[in-house]
């Protein structure tokens, strides 16, 4: 596929949402619509000390690249960008972002949702919540698995 390596980034470093969105938009030649989504570390109980994100180096990049390729096959996308962090993050820190670009907003919105639904349940990341009362692996939600069903043909 034509996905360039820097369009899928798995990293520990923080990213600048505004700078990434601007650079992505500036690289386009055909698109009339850019959609971005950003995920933040959520502190459900107000006791979160940190979120530790583990991943499977190698498979993670391959799995996300395959999702981006699938999104490009399904929707009229000019381009897509996925950044996902791993390591130790504090509450409210950005974990990941998706940007999609298309001629019209419908494809950009749908592709962003498609990528998010797949990233949730099919990219090899695991979250562990470190709180004052201990450490717990975040369980997968049935709703996330159900969200994939709408994309099955």
């Amino acid at each position, binding site marked *: 596929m034509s996905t360039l390596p820097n369009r899928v980034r798995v990293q520990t470093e923080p990213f600048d949402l505004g700078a990434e969105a601007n650079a992505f938009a500036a690289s386009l030649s055909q698109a009339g619509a850019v959609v971005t989504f950003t995920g933040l570390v959520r502190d459900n109980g107000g006791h979160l000390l940190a979120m530790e994100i583990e991943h*499977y180096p190698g*498979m993670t990049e391959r799995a996300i690249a395959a999702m981006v390729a699938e999104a490009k096959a399904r929707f009229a996308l000019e381009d897509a960008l996925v950044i996902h962090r791993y390591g130790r993050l504090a509450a409210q820190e950005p974990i*990941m972002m998706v940007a999609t670009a298309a001629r019209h907003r419908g494809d950009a919105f749908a592709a962003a949702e498609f990528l998010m639904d797949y990233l*949730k349940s099919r990219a090899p*990341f695991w979250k562990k919540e470190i709180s004052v009362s201990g450490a717990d692996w975040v369980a997968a939600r049935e709703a996330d698995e159900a969200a994939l069903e709408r994309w099955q043909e």
Partner: protein
Amino acid sequence: MRVTVLYFAWLRERIGEPREEVETSVATVADLMAELATRSEGHALAFADRTSLRVALDQELADFSAPLAGVREVAFFPPMTGG
């Protein structure tokens, strides 16, 4: 055959190792899980509930019924929680 077995998240914690080299002659992922479960108490605990496990063969998601022939890297992990 010799395969590299990788563990992630709570599987890694229960087994106490992120990876091990395994010499085996079993045919499928399910057979390998049964064999690995006998290695230690931690292994037995990790493989006790298969509904909470996923497997990737050479970095592609697979089913427990998948054959191991030609596979070099087998990874076991809980359902993924990215995003």
